[in-house]
């Protein structure tokens, strides 16, 4: 038998009674209907305590029916794992939902944590600052940490899919309540691209909770007609179940769109005009024990009745400071809830309303406030008192009035989060006792309750006007539509929200952060009177709701306590997100392979087939080594090195940065960039050079070739390819726009295959080409262009390994063909070389690896470029800095070679040269590269050492992970110092 829904009304509501859904709450089987939120289903089943409070572990019940919920943030599982902090007041109930109270040990109904409540006087604001200093905080921290947190990390796999979308529109309307709908309707005819966004799955906003007559029809009908009209208009897009979460600069807003099950879409919208029709949030009243389960915002109670056909309790007292709650009382009454009293802080109440109450026999207690509430587990009664003449105290406390529910209304506060995020300022409207939007530097207007227009009639007409005006401002023409209502509503708020009596340490201001009036009093007493200090010291408004129902009361209290007008105490700034957004949605598809899409070599497949083991080098996937015949990494690297030194190796260098510069000033431009003289380079020749930052620091090295008089090809290190093109562009565009040069990056246009080794030339000569590879025609450091295997080719004789070396550039798409041809031709005389072997080969040769052998302090002089700098007449980037005293210091860290005195010592990159212990250990530099050289059969390394140039041959101590041993300082070049092999 289906469990009964004790509090469900037999008719009415927007739920589908033909579609029952079963769910579990703390393992109890319950039933709700399609159309329920989790919260409405819990209420229908008479569940009052849903959670425990954050700090004092007090029982808490459902407080609201919207995004402002502070208590019913529960753990929900839909079979894929638990998700914590779900706002059950806005989350649709789904069949088989498992809902759990995150806190309460052993259970939410019997919680040992209550001991914190019994001792609550200790745990005031700032408590942690005053104690737990001895022996140290870490000692206590574990305990505190375990108590914090609103639930466990989501469990299980994340089954959601996340997408990003972008949209431009002329008018973005946020909120589809009466104001937003009227605005959208008005703008339809303008032709503007209008986007209407609503967080609920239905349009209508407050009309869903409280029907009315609009243009002489029932609001349900009006909403559905409006929806059809908007959906028919090609220029209007309606998004439901979509929350605008952030309002950023330049009218860019973000939306989290939950309209598709299992999918979350994150939209970035750039709007010409924004209209915020985000409504208002009812504010709670502050009195002793105002946090008991059964106490609920008045309009939430009405929404549960009207929208979900759930009565929150059988007997409910209504307490208010304004007219709007009377409608709530009457709705409750008309739906079978007994209302023993309406408690009203005001003395004078409009006759008309009084009469309506009289007709129903509901007594009104005017000039009265709630003094206290009672009940063991849930609310059982309230006590009422009369306000004294000056309003500063209460008199004549009543007997306890029995009730299981209390509907509270402190009036409304516009939902200004987005406006504030946009940089808008709020001002205090005394007659409404709330903050309304005042001015904003962005193109935004506010309409309806969000602007403090709390009556339906105003929301409709002003919404219509605001809609057409916003469309007009965006450059379109239209007029406001006619939209009227015969439903009248009055407000007449009296600014009393805080009962001036009772134990202030039991009067809650922020339910979610568990902040009481006493905390705020203490903060003020201790001089935390700036709003920001108050907020941080007491944590008011710092929880996941950003204070939607607590900021206003906190500010009111602050003003009272500091005896300042509330408008002068200031407001805090809201930050994105309006509603917390799943982080997966913000990251979207930038995950795994898409996090940084891998760049593959043009001949990737070939490398795969030949046993390459790939490693990430920046975004590139490159062969680290080739596991030919299953050999291990170390063997592979050694054999690759030896193969190249003995015969020939083939290296895929395609990621090498390649930048072409053309134009009459190309040479002049490069001459200002490179430390080296560029102008003396003849066409067809290549030079090695350094690029420096303004500070003289080496940022890149590589060769540059002069292809023709006005045509240069610059090679950068693979890692810096992107950075250097930006660097060149910056100098060209910002500093020397007068130079006629065009800079283009061609890195991925050309595939680069380097073949090096004593047999390199012989091999190449066997390949179909019109290029003369002979030593005379193509000596070291020269370039030739022609064709190879019938495709255009540039061949540069540059060497990174110290061997005779040809760097063959062909269109990337042909790269694989060239590799195949060379490998076929070479047979066992040639071997593919991975990146690690290549780096090792260059260590043997003592070539610089910028970024490894240099760091952010290494200048051109430190790597032996003093002569070149001195010889160059003209200026270049960084030259000035090389003239500074410090750059000229003799004891700078300079580039050297290093070898351990004892062959058994495992010299590793990352070790430091240190001064002897008795001189006080100090680092004198670092070992920047080190390896066992297969060629030389011993360990060698490179490094940066203080005064290194003059210390060749010296013995220096090296420190590595606590060990020390001695090394000898050498020239950096270990292999073929004369360059005979390379120049062959």
């Amino acid at each position: 038998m289906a469990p009964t829904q004790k509090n469900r009304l037999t008719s009415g509501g927007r739920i589908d009674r033909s579609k029952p859904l079963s769910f579990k709450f703390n393992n109890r089987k319950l039933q709700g209907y399609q159309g329920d939120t989790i919260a409405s289903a819990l209420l229908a089943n008479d569940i009052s305590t849903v959670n425990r409070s954050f700090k004092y572990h007090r029982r808490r019940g459902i407080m609201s029916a919207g995004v402002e919920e502070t208590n019913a943030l529960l753990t929900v599982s839909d079979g894929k794992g638990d998700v914590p902090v779900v706002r059950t007041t806005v989350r649709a109930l789904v069949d088989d939902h498992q809902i759990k109270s995150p806190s309460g040990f052993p259970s939410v109904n019997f919680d040992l944590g209550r001991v914190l409540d019994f001792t609550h006087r200790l745990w005031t604001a700032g408590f942690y600052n005053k104690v737990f200093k001895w022996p140290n905080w870490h000692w206590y921290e574990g305990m505190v940490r375990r108590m914090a947190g609103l639930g466990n990390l989501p469990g299980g796999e994340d089954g959601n899919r996340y997408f990003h979308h972008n949209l431009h529109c002329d008018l973005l309307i946020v909120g589809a309540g009466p104001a937003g709908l009227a605005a959208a309707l008005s703008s339809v005819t303008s032709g503007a691209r209008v986007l209407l966004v609503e967080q609920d799955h239905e349009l209508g906003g407050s009309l869903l909770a409280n029907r009315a007559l609009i243009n002489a029809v029932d609001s349900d009908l009006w909403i559905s007609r409006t929806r059809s009209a908007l959906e028919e208009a090609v220029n209007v897009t309606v998004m439901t179940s979509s929350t605008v979460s952030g309002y950023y600069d330049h009218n860019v807003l973000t939306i989290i769109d939950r309209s598709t099950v299992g999918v979350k879409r994150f939209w970035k919208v750039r709007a010409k005009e924004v209209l915020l029709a985000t409504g208002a949030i009812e504010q709670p009243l502050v009195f002793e024990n105002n946090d008991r389960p059964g106490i609920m915002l008045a309009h939430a109670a009405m929404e549960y009745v009207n929208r979900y056909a759930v009565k929150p309790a059988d007997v409910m007292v209504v307490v208010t400071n304004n007219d709007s709650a009377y409608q709530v009382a009457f709705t409750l009454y008309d739906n079978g809830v007994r209302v023993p009293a309406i408690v009203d802080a005001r003395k004078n109440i409009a006759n008309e309303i009084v009469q309506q109450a009289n007709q129903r026999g509901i007594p009104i207690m005017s000039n009265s406030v709630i003094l206290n509430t009672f009940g063991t587990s849930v609310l059982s009664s309230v006590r009422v008192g009369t306000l004294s003449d000056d309003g500063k105290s209460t008199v004549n406390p009543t007997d306890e009035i029995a009730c299981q529910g209390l509907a509270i209304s402190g009036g409304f506060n516009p939902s200004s989060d987005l406006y504030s995020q946009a940089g808008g300022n709020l001002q205090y409207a005394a007659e409404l006792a709330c903050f309304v939007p005042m001015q904003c530097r962005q193109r935004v207007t506010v309409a309806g309750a969000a602007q403090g227009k709390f009556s339906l009639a105003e929301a409709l007409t002003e919404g219509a006007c605001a809609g057409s005006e916003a469309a007009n401002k965006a450059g379109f023409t239209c007029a406001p539509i006619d939209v009227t209502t015969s439903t009248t509503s009055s407000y007449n708020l009296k600014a009393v929200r805080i009962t001036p009596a009772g134990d202030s340490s039991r009067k809650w201001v922020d339910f979610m952060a568990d902040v009481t009036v006493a905390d705020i009093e203490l903060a003020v007493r201790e001089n935390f009177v700036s709003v920001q200090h108050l907020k941080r010291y007491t944590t008011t408004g710092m929880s996941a709701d950003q204070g939607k129902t607590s900021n206003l009361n906190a500010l009111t209290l602050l003003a009272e306590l500091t005896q300042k007008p509330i408008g002068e105490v200031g407001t805090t700034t809201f930050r994105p997100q309006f509603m917390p957004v799943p982080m997966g949605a913000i990251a979207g598809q930038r995950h795994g392979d898409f996090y940084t899409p891998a760049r593959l070599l043009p001949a990737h497949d070939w490398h795969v087939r030949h046993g390459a083991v790939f490693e990430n080098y920046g975004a590139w996937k490159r062969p680290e080594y080739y596991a030919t015949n299953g050999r291990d990494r170390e063997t592979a690297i050694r054999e690759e090195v030896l193969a190249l030194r003995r015969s020939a190796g083939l290296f895929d260098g395609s990621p090498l940065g390649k930048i072409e510069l053309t134009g009459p000033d190309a040479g002049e431009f490069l001459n200002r960039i490179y430390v080296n003289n560029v102008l003396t380079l003849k066409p067809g020749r290549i030079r090695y050079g350094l690029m420096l930052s303004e500070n003289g620091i080496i940022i890149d090295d590589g060769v540059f070739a002069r292809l023709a008089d006005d045509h240069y090809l610059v090679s950068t290190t693979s890692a810096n390819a992107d950075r250097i093109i930006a660097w060149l562009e910056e100098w060209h565009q910002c500093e020397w726009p007068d130079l006629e040069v065009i800079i283009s990056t061609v890195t991925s246009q050309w595939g680069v295959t380097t073949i090096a080794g004593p047999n390199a030339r012989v091999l190449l000569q066997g390949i179909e080409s019109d290029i003369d590879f002979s030593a005379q025609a193509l000596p070291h450091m020269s370039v030739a262009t022609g064709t190879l295997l019938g495709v255009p080719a540039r061949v540069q004789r540059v060497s990174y390994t110290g061997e005779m070396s040809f760097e063959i550039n062909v269109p990337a798409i042909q790269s694989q063909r060239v590799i195949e041809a060379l490998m076929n031709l070479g047979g066992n005389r040639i071997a593919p070389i991975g990146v690690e072997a290549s780096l090792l080969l260059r260590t043997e040769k003592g070539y610089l690896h910028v970024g490894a052998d240099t760091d952010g302090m290494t200048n051109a002089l430190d790597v032996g470029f003093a002569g070149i700098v001195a010889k160059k007449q003209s200026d270049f980037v960084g030259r000035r800095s090389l003239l500074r005293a410090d750059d000229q210091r003799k004891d700078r860290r300079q580039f050297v070679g290093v070898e351990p005195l004892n062959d058994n010592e495992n010299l590793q990159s990352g070790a430091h040269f240190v001064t002897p212990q008795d001189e006080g250990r100090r680092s004198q530099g670092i070992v920047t590269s080190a390896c066992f050289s297969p060629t030389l059969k011993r360990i060698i390394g490179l490094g940066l050492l203080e005064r290194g140039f003059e210390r060749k041959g010296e013995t220096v101590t090296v420190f590595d992970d606590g060990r020390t041993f001695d090394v000898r300082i050498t020239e950096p070049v270990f292999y073929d110092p004369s360059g005979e092999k390379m120049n062959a």
Partner: protein
Amino acid sequence: MNGYSFLSVVRQALNGHKGWPVVWRSPEPKKNYDVVIVGAGGHGLATAYYLAKNHFIKNIAVLEKGWLGGGNTGRNTQITRSNYFWPQSAAFFDHSLKLYEHLGQELNFNVMLSQRGMLTLAHSLHELEGMRRWANAIKINDIDAEVLTPIEVKKLVPLIDLNCRFPIRGGFIQHRGGISRHDAVAWGYARAASAYGVDIIQQCEVTAFNISSGRVTGVHTTRGTIGADKISIAVAGHTSELARMADFRVPVTSMALQAMVSEPIKPCLNTVVMSPIIHMYASQSDRGELVFGGGADLYNSYAQRGGIPLLQENIAALLELFPAFSRLRLMRQWAGIVDITPDTSPLMGLTPVQNLYISGGWGTGGYKAIPAGGETMAYTIANDQPHPLIEDFGLERFESGALIDEGAASGVAH
């Protein structure tokens, strides 16, 4: 100063906490002070405190245009570490960490220092070599550091995905690194300074300096003119503005640095984790929120608010390392304006104007430096000569070229 202790809390609890005194006074500004400090961030407040405590100067005002601690001191991600590469930095920042280690007791105000370890990840063997270089530097400077294998990383941070896009090859940890509570640092120093008689004057913006024959004599503020024998600037992101007012230039660019927090959950991340390659760092606060961030925005700005590109980048980075966080919700994002120098090291000491001092260039990492920054600046002001620990951090280095580039040595700096 009324002592804070468990006993005093209990005693106060019995009388409804009615007896607590103000944590700091809010006096009207006087006409003249011996020392005026511009900016009531951590650095300004700490400087005032140490001037009073160590140098017995009591006639001090700290002027703050907003509310104390409301600048970067109240916006940062609270990472406290001293794993610096260059000896000068290591000496300075480790001194700071040591002061932090007893700060709660010294100030009688719990700053909640939690030395839960600061782990830096390496995603390639070459990066691991770089880390070895870094760890050795730290050890030579007598600071703790340990290089970890991927398995050790996983043990320490079980939620981490070792096989992310750039698989984790290891890492290194400073066990003494961690986080502390930024507001408490500002408030603790404010309270202690105020107790020494320092006037903290909020809502008081400095708009100009009085300078006569190369010597500063006072400031114009939104609350009137205030005379001073010595003035020190500690305004972080506004350093170049204040320097401009005093007619000298500093090599500082100001950019927004963002931070963000998730909804609070039960403890799941017990170490501070940083990855230089997957550009992000994260920790979990005592309240349970994940606090994280990455690099600064890519353009100069004085607007203290977050934007979208970095938000997406930082979160993508976080989820790349911690896929388990994907359903966790982002609660808030914000930004502070950080003052970045060309070598990312701070700018402390004398200025071209006599009796005018500066403490800035704190960039993305000056929170951890607050105690040492305050102490050494107090010395510098009192003696009109840089404290030995900060001699190398003066403005002159941009002329001499004696830069201390930590950015290049350690990647991200926070």
